[in-house]
């Protein structure tokens, strides 16, 4: 293996930003924003009258306040819009209290349910948020209000971070992991899923045994799916069911969850990793309206 090869960061997923060309922030009523500072990724979403105007999605640094600032700066980049023109900003995610420019913090559990309602529609009753370092099963009503939830205990198995570890180990780019894991003729036994570190050493053993990469990935994706399905079953699933968070983009995990549940999760029309920030921006809009009513 060449040096360049070994230095490649397989786990590094694509950062992105977007501006809606059909919208103009200058002739709108409410400009609101949500910033979701997660353990692995940070998103800033700016909405005009409840429609997505622009967003950014990038890696969280070691410093939460900086991550929030960077994501916001990048989202605003080239739009002519500035922070002071945003009427209300809600912070969410693990670093929600560190968003210096946010007026309020709301949990990512509430924001993901609200965001899933926006992305997938009001029929969604069960949301599985597969985040960077944790995983949440959420039940909500037709408005996207949380009615019950469960979170995995302190363990990275079944999370984005775990997937990054595997991408790195197998030297498969994170964006390709899901697809590759489906290139097996027969589904292998899942790796034991209790711990990423143990799963990783188990995977090393399987590679040594001569298993091809796709088979090892299949074993890991299926372990991950099984783990989150257990969480969902504990909470109880009501249809329709949707997935948010970075892992929602991993077809290998999504397909296996669907197979285990015998349920289909709808295809997202918007990047599902944005769900938390979208929810936060929608709450920010509601808070502007609430303030108006008061005065």
């Amino acid at each position: 293996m060449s040096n360049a090869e070994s230095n490649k960061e397989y786990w590094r997923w694509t950062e992105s930003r977007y501006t809606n060309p059909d919208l103009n922030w200058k002739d709108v009523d409410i400009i609101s924003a949500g910033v979701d500072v997660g353990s692995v990724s940070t998103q800033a979403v700016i909405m005009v009258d409840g429609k997505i105007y622009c967003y950014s999605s990038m890696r969280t640094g070691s410093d939460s306040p900086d991550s929030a600032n960077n994501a916001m700066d990048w989202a605003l980049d080239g739009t002519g819009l500035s922070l002071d023109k945003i009427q209300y900003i809600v912070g969410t995610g693990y670093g929600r209290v560190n968003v210096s420019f946010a007026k309020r913090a709301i949990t990512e559990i509430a924001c993901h349910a609200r965001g899933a309602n926006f992305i997938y529609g009001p029929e969604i009753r069960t949301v599985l948020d597969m985040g960077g370092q944790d995983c949440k099963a959420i039940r909500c009503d037709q408005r996207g209000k949380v009615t019950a939830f469960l979170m995995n205990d302190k363990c990275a198995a079944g999370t984005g971070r775990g997937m990054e570890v595997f991408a790195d180990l197998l030297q498969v780019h994170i964006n390709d992991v899901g697809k590759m894991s489906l290139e097996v003729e027969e589904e292998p036994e899942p790796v034991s899923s209790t711990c990423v570190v143990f799963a990783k050493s188990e995977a090393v053993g399987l590679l040594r045994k001569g298993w091809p990469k796709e088979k090892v990935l299949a074993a890991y994706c299926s372990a991950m799916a099984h783990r989150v399905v257990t969480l969902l079953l504990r909470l109880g699933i009501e249809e329709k069911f949707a997935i948010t968070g970075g892992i929602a983009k991993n077809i290998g995990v999504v397909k296996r969850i669907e197979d285990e549940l015998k349920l289909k999760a709808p295809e997202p029309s918007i990047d599902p990793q944005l769900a938390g920030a979208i929810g936060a921006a929608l709450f920010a809009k509601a808070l502007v309206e609430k303030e108006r009513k008061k005065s």
Partner: protein
Amino acid sequence: MFEQFKDWYENRHEYAKKWKERTGGKVIGTFCTYVPEEILYAADILPVRILGSHEPQDVSEPHIFAMFCPFCRDCLAQGLKGRFDYLDGITIAQSCLHIRQTFTSWDLHIPVDFTYYLTHPMHIQSPRAIPYLTEELKEFKKAVEEWTGKEITEEDLKRGIEIMNTNRRLLQQVYELRKQPNPPLTGLEAMIMVVSSQMVDKREHNKALVELLEKLPSRSLDEPGERLMILGSEDDDTKFIAMVEDLGSRIVIDEHCTGTRYFYEEVNTNGDALASIAERYVKRIPCPSKDWPERTRVDHIVKLAKEYDIQGAIVMQMKFCDPHELDTPAIKKALENDVGVPTIFLEFDVTVPIGQFKTRVEAFLEILREEDLF
């Protein structure tokens, strides 16, 4: 107002050492709240409860199975680290397997002058449990007498009972104030108050409680926010309680062996002292390891929920605590379906992941708050 209790809680070992110097008396470490402290007070011995310190540790691993509850391992670690080096003896009343292992391992590795394993009925719902325990208490009393070289008279026992009962009554009076719409104390203060009672001479604790009760009724705190109950296994995780209350809610009642299960019932003072003590420890609100075949604790929890007018309940347990784990579904069902109290379940370790738990508790409060943001 709670400084004295906090000082005792934080400096438990210094307190016990000074108590020994001052009185020349003996100190016994107790495991589990089934140890009849009345008999120890009757013998002028200071009982102190052995609890953990909530610090990550690696000293207990060679001695106790890693899948035993973190609290029991934390307790053993305290012994192995020499934090309780002033103890003259240790005693346990038979309860769960995990704390028994802590006791036996302590006995093996941290020798003390006096060790007593008090056989305590597990089937406390049996009509034969009280006579059984009465006989066992006679043996325990005899062993203590032999060790101290001093007879424990019926008068001594009555004195021991009086000390313990006074403490129970005073704590209960403070808890009554928590039923008010705006209780004059926080859940954190209540926890420190009750846990400190298990570490210091109850006569001193009683004095402090009398003083507290003079001042408390006129104390006024900020609006309490959501009224919560916390229940489950051993819990003196003050960091967690502080975090929950910092989010704008108030814990108004607990159901823990470090809280109400420790002090709720008094010993009857008419009749034979040992039989009355036995009766109290058989009939008290049980630890789930003894709550068989009826699960009486579930009704008790529902009763507390109503009395303290709670809006939500935090159901916690130490990881791997099987007795509590078994009760959890029944408790959740009773609270949610019978009295409409939403619950959140959390599994504790020696240290809790405070960031993640904060997210969960905050999301739970968001559900309770019903704020219209839609």
